[in-house]
């Protein structure tokens, strides 16, 4: 057993920190946390960071060298996730690098690989994934968006929701029903759709915490060539399940939790009203700190096992479950410590920590829903992990 990183991993972390310090405005993470960043500034920093990452070959860090990546190991990828989350780095490869690229590498044709991968690794194309629908959330396989063959084309109609980054994406990887008669899992294909294709409409969602980049995407008789299917027609569902090799440590939310608790600890040192009259607050901060350390271990176990060639599915569900519930506890701790002023929204004169925790408190409700709900994670741990019978 060894609770340290290798010298190469440490070197990478150091180099990455130096890079982030140089690329991000000095007070970026603070201002971003406080909601003090305009949309234009956000985009500007996003573009600049994405370009700089591409120049360094870091944008597609995990990809094999032949596809424009550096073939980074799993632990190194998790370090990347940890550090970029801690600094609240905007930009980076998003879904294109994290899931679409690997899917094209594994299942795509050579022509698709040549057409899409270099541009994605260079930050010239951005992707979104088009998967969940209003009536197909936890039960994704129930999706109804259709891609019907018409000669050399698919004609797509339907609507996807909870799409991240759709407004800036050049392409989407769509999961759609290509066989209406087959069992739900057996009739789904993944298809590349240019986001500027005729009939694609992106509608931003109005969310509780005012997120900027979640949308609904509607398809009205959108035509794409049949060559855009990735992998085999009707095998999309099974291809989507082969995510086990991807970075799935879940360490990003642990890292964010750490930064947020550090903000509270610092505020509590400065402003004794936060803790002096409330002895339980000290223990609560200590609890969160301990939980963060638990989280780091649970998360890093995932890449550790992947590096050994294992498939840590159950471990990844555990990390996801633990991290998203920790996110909510951290938000609650912020609200608790900041007292009456915690309810004041961002920016106000009397909003402690500038009201950032009131937004965090709203945003955290999504932590146990997005990316698979906590109930689903528990089902997966119990049924797939522990082999308990389904009800």
């Amino acid at each position, binding site marked *: 057993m060894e609770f340290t990183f290798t010298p190469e991993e440490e070197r990478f972390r150091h180099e990455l920190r130096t890079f982030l310090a140089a690329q991000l405005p000095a007070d970026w993470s603070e201002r971003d946390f406080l909601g003090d960043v305009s949309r234009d500034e956000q985009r500007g920093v996003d573009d600049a960071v994405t370009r700089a990452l591409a120049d360094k070959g870091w944008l597609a860090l995990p990809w094999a060298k032949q596809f424009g990546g550096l073939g980074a190991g799993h632990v190194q990828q998790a370090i990347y996730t940890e550090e970029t989350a801690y600094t609240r780095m905007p930009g980076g490869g998003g879904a294109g690098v994290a899931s679409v690229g690997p899917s094209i590498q594994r299942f795509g044709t050579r022509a698709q690989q040549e057409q899409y991968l270099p541009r994605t690794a260079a930050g010239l194309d951005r992707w979104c994934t088009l998967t969940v629908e209003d009536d197909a959330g936890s039960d994704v396989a129930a999706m109804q968006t259709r891609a019907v063959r018409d000669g050399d084309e698919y004609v797509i109609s339907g609507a996807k929701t909870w799409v991240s980054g759709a407004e800036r994406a050049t392409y989407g990887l769509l999961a759609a029903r290509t066989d209406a008669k087959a069992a739900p899992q057996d009739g789904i294909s993944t298809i590349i759709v240019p986001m500027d294709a005729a009939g694609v409409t992106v509608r931003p969602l109005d969310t509780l915490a005012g997120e900027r980049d979640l949308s609904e995407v509607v398809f009205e008789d959108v035509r794409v060539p049949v060559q855009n299917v990735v992998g085999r027609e009707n095998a999309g569902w099974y291809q989507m399940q082969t995510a086990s090799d991807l970075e799935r440590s879940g360490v990003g939310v642990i890292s964010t939790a750490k930064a947020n608790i550090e903000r509270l600890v610092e505020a509590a040192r400065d402003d004794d009203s936060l803790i002096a009259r409330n002895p339980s607050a000290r223990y609560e901060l200590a609890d969160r700190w301990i939980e963060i350390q638990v989280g780091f271990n649970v998360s890093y176990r995932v890449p550790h096992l992947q590096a050994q060639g294992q498939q840590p599915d159950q471990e990844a569900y555990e990390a996801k479950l633990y991290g998203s519930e920790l996110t909510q506890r951290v938000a609650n701790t912020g609200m608790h410590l900041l007292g009456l002023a915690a*309810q004041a*929204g961002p920016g106000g004169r009397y909003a402690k920590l500038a009201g950032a925790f009131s937004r965090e408190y709203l945003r955290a409700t*999504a932590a146990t829903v997005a990316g698979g709900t906590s109930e689903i994670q528990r089902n997966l741990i119990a049924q797939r992990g522990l082999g308990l019978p389904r009800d």
Partner: protein
Amino acid sequence: MDLGLNEQQELLKNAAREFLENECPESHVREMEEDERGYSPVLWGQMAEQGWQGLLIPEQYGGVGFDFLDLTVLLEEIGRALVPGPYMSTVLGGAVPIIEGGSEDQKKEFLPKIASGELIFTLALTEPSARFDEQGVQCAATVSGNDVTLNGTKLFVSDANVADYMVVAARTGKGVTLAIVAKDQPGVTVTSIQTIARDKQCEVVLKDAKGQLLGAEGAGWAILEPVIQKYTVAEAAYLVGLAQMDFEIAVDYAKERVQFGRPIGSFQAIQHKCADMVTDVDGSRFITYKAAWCIASGQPAADTQMAVNMAKAWTSESTRRVVAHGQQIHGGIGFTKDYKIQLFYRRQKRAELAFGDADHHRELVAQQLGI
């Protein structure tokens, strides 16, 4: 032992529910979030016609003369419908202090106009220190005869933007002193604070503001103690109604929403949440009724104080658990503004914090236990 409502309370509850379902639907709650005043004068007038503002006010001053337990029943319905506007501010923050500490002239002057819906009041108690205890009152007052001059800042004052008068807690050499202060005067500046509930909580800056003494100079805290007790229980009752409705919406949704070919309510993971929610709601209701009953029936002071602190300590946290489950049961849709469940989630936080969060009341419980 009888934990049920009496006939009059049942009538009040049913009438209030029916009225609010018609007059204060979800669309109204949303509209008032965007409204600068944050309340509808029409609804306010209708509430007055039914005697709600005057519920606690004795008949001789134009009120209905019901007791505090009756008010608790009504407040549960107000929480259920998330009624926007200055009802609690006016009744608990205006009528109650005047009933407790006002002169005969003040009662005659203000109470009938509160009962008729003519006047809106609020209580200006908390300051930037955000404390709910006697030490928290630092706003400066000087008294000359019946006149009070005030200087200081009051914070998180509900509905001050629309109030005609404020009951201000301030401090003279003799201790905490209350004053009734007209809002429309040069010495009073009111600014709304953006809050998670998108309600109307305000900063009130007093610069040589003029008011009239309410009770004797230095007697303010003694008058405020029963006011704070009642206001605290009122917030708990509001939370009970809010949580009850959140729970009902979530159970309905769990019955309707289908995933994996069956209603999500058929999954035990969801059933257990629903069961936890109703257990928390019921627990909250009866500990709140107990506190209200102590007040209404004049139980010994020590018992009443303990009951009030326990009620708010419990409901502050139990209802937070309820609304968190409400969100989770809704999945992604709960995170959109389109669906109504988030209205309850955001408003729970206001009432959780109002008149002391769970820690504040836990501390008082511990003190009363002698630890």
